[in-house]
């Protein structure tokens, strides 16, 4: 396939220290989606109805909600944001393990880390109860079935989770909740170092890890197009089966 470099996303990293788009997307599926997205402005992307994370977190509509105190509402929003990222990671690792495309140390990492992310999902859902956002549908577009694409995406996800939790920590009102989220944040950093090591990269590239705004994190997640609408497999048409 001839590569027209002018159409592909720029080779600069999505975020400092992170993999370039080309590293994440050898099959080209993600870059095709990005090409479509790049034709709109970043602001335009967030206004589009199709961006999964933006929709799920209700970021473009004023937050609806009962008369909960503002601090509780904020904590709940932070928890749901964390839950979304954990869903993304948990489903990613779970699918990778089930597709059995990974071998050796990478497969072991996916097993252990996947178990952690699934546990994070369970815990966050338990705390949120009825206020938890539902599990989205994902389309990983072959990334879970290719060891090097998996590995590079895992590096991106873990670094992203660290930066996302780090940004939110000072905003959390409840001390107990903050303690819990810090304890997850450090585990995500362990995951990040681990997968980086397996990818032949420096586990700890910098003396200080930087936070990343929710806006930027969500834009990156939406850029992957991993979050998709569930397939519409229900209908109301009159059946025309043989009877």
């Amino acid at each position, binding site marked *: 396939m001839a590569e027209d470099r002018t159409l592909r996303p720029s080779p600069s990293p999505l975020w400092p220290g992170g993999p370039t788009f080309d590293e994440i997307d050898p099959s080209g599926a993600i870059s095709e989606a990005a090409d479509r997205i790049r034709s709109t402005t970043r602001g335009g992307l967030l206004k589009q109805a199709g961006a999964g994370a933006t929709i799920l977190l209700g970021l473009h509509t004023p937050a609806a909600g009962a008369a909960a105190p503002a601090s509780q509402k904020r904590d709940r929003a932070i928890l749901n944001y964390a839950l979304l990222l954990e869903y993304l990671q948990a489903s990613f690792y779970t699918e990778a393990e089930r597709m059995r495309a990974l071998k050796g140390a990478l497969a072991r990492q996916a097993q252990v880390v996947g178990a952690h992310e*699934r546990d994070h999902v369970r815990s966050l859902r338990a705390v949120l109860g009825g206020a938890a956002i539902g599990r989205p549908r994902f389309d990983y577009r072959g990334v879970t079935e290719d060891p090097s694409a998996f590995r590079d995406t895992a590096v991106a996800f873990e670094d992203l989770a660290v930066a996302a939790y780090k940004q939110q920590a000072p905003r959390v009102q409840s001390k107990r*909740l903050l303690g819990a989220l810090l304890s997850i944040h450090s585990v995500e950093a362990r995951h990040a170092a681990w997968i980086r090591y397996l990818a032949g990269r420096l586990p700890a590239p910098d003396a200080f890890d930087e936070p990343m705004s929710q806006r930027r994190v969500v834009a990156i997640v939406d850029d992957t197009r991993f979050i998709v609408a569930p397939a519409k*497999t229900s209908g109301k048409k009159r059946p025309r089966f*043989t009877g």
Partner: protein
Amino acid sequence: MTITAPERRRLRRAAFVAGALVASAGVCVVVVSLLTTNRSHTSLPPPPRSALPLGRPTPLASDAHLARWAPVSAAAIARRAPDPSAPPVARLDTRTPEHTRNIVGLLGRTRGRGGRLWVRVRLAILPNGTSAWVPRRALGGYVFVHTRLVIDRRRLQAVLSRDGRVVFRAPVGIGKPAWPTPRGEFYVRDRLTSYRSPAYGPLAFGTSARSRVMTDWPAGGYIGIHGTDHPELLPGRVSHGCIRMANRNILRLGRLMPVGTPVIVR
């Protein structure tokens, strides 16, 4: 030195007041201390009790009872082998005759020439049981299901299992001898509700199974699993191929069986 009970009570009250004063006024007001240079004192406050339960990560359960399906996101030619030059087997559409999203059962995958990912899928065409290869790109996200429906044509029974355990049983009507319910491995393709057609009961599942004899049937002659307005005929060989059950049973099945569930007809 001992403290008498009244003194103890007074101390307690005084300390409580002092504590309240301190807590409200802030530490700086009341503290009379110099920062000690002795760093071996433990003086920092404790960590708060965590809001989340202690982590209990568990490995994935075995996938022996797992099936996979994916929606068809782009129309494609399904081929005999994982290669663009292999003979075509069928065209894969994005929609079913019911206008729901078309889905396929996943059977395997491989890397073709040029490193592209191909997936072997179960097709809803005749002959029943046909599988073929499509590029990964034609499919959407994978969905895993833990359920499995077995239709026993001899016992005239439907049995649904979840993770290998039976969760549902019901007597069924199957095809008359001239219009048999085909044997083989299929999957639930869609589910229909809110239609008005008593012959199909309140809920109907479409499957990937096709009637071998009703090939001229409009909309392709697909085998469905649905309710009935003649439950008195069940169990029995009574239909044109569809699997019928009493309406209360199809509703129960509707709560237990997601689309994509494998259907094994024996």
